[in-house]
């Protein structure tokens, strides 16, 4: 038991979160290291069924109708070994008018050759709310390959909000593939903030389908690539219903020999729908740079300050 606690504390020490929050009986949690469940705590109305696989876990998470979880649920998926594969298969159902917020930490502090594969199917019921913040902490070696994939169904009047952050440690390789379908009057907000260096490779493919009347969707990507890092962002918003509203926003700062591509695709199939997009790719804004330098910051420190600001929450 003490070994499990040590591993949990070790994983949390990299996240800037307090592991003692897990001691709160009102905080549900699920802690996974490699393919082992180190800790799990459910709450009334929140059903969690976990099976250990050879290379990961399979989890079904169901929030029953009308249940409101007051405090964020903590998820921690980590691997302390230098090498290995962790596959997370998640089946999430948020029933009608239920509300939940999740804080997920994915921690690979010593990775030299680690694959983290997330395959999620998420259903948000009518009038339900699902907020998910996923923070990655990687090793400085760049030996992590991350493949997050999610199929999301957002029901009528429902909210789906997800935020992905990878700014601590080297990216290695990340290949995000999210696809969401939004029904009437639903709201979808997907954002990613990622900082790449060395030969990191960042790929984001996000698609949102606004199929319901007055559905709204926003896809936001903020990325910095330095040294020889590469980033490719493919954001697609498809609006087929009247009064659907959507916006695609991509900002990428490119430094050194980094490269960045943004391909916003806006597909409007209803004359009463409206979708916009904005992409800004390039070096740090010169006026921002000179402002900070005129306060005495070196050019490198000024660039760091600007990028940290862009990538902050």
């Amino acid at each position, binding site marked *: 038991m003490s070994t499990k606690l040590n591993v949990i504390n070790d994983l949390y020490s990299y996240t800037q979160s307090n592991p003692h929050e897990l001691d709160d009986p009102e905080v549900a949690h699920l802690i996974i290291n490699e393919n082992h469940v180190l800790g799990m705590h459910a709450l009334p109305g929140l059903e969690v069924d976990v099976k250990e696989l050879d290379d990961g876990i399979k989890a079904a998470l169901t929030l029953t109708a009308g249940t409101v979880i007051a405090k964020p649920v903590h998820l921690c998926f980590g691997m302390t070994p230098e090498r290995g594969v962790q596959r997370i298969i998640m089946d999430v159902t948020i029933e009608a008018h239920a509300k939940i917020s999740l804080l997920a930490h994915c921690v690979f502090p010593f990775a030299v050759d680690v694959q983290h594969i997330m395959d999620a199917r998420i259903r948000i019921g009518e009038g339900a709310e699902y907020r998910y913040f996923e923070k990655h902490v990687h090793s400085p070696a760049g030996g992590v390959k991350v493949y997050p994939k999610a199929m999301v169904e957002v029901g009528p009047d429902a909210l789906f909000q997800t935020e992905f952050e990878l700014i601590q440690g080297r990216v290695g390789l990340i290949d995000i593939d999210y696809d969401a379908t939004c029904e009437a009057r639903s709201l979808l907000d997907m954002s990613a903030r990622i900082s790449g260096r060395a030969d990191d490779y960042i790929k984001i493919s996000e698609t949102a389908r606004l199929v319901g009347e007055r559905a709204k969707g926003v896809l936001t990507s903020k990325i910095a690539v330095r040294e020889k890092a590469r980033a490719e962002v493919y954001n697609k918003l498809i609006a087929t219903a009247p009064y659907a509203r959507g916006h695609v926003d991509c900002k990428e700062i490119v430094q050194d020999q980094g490269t960045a591509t943004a391909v916003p695709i806006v597909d409007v199939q209803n004359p009463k729908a409206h979708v916009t997009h904005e992409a800004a790719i390039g070096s740090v804004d010169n006026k921002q740079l*000179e402002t900070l330098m005129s306060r005495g910051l070196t050019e490198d420190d000024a660039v760091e300050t600007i990028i940290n*600001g862009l990538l*902050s929450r």
Partner: protein
Amino acid sequence: MGRLVLDNLKLSLGGKPILNNVSIDFWDGHVHAVVGPNGAGKSTLAATIVGLGGYTDVDGDITFDGESICSLSVDERARKGITLAWQEPARFEGLTIRDFIKASAHGNGVDVDAILEQVGLDPGSYRSRAVDKTLSGGERKKVELASILAMKPKVALLDEPDSGIDIESIERIFDAVRLLKEQGATVILITHSLAVLNQAEHAFLMCHGKVVDKGPVAKIRHYFEDKCIPCDHKNTPEVYDLGGQV
């Protein structure tokens, strides 16, 4: 001897002369104003003194404490204590006002809340906001001035410090100018405004890239009162006896 000295400074942009033999001694610890019509070269002068990109290919010299600074970069000049509050300050997505002010203090302890109060911003409402497009032009100007105060510069150039500032807040801006002077800074106000000019002790009137008059504020104030300039390409009012002071 002035701490900051411009000696026959010339600068051309796109082949067009913008600064034409500008020589000014800015007196150590005094508040100066540089006034003149649009296109006179006032903001260019400020950009040249701090060494912004595109404003460094100068003839003549700029010395600070007796040493030429023309070959120094913007940040090197700033670390000597020379800075600029921009007429239209930059906006930074995600960078909080607190972090922006702290960055300007570059490692020195700074009471962010006290500085925000000095420029008329409620710390509780502003310290965690981003220095981004959600701030109005006037709010952004106040944040810019706060960052200058945090830096405790030796030379502070304030380009149009009152533009976009509401009437209730203008005295706060002038308080900040007085505070900079109390801290020992040489203050240079770039302005079109009589109210700002009145905060200075000495003034320089520019037109067409030249200094065409200089002296106590009371003397230069005539420019505003009569809306004319003693310059060879504009009207030269007979009432002014320049007495060879230009």
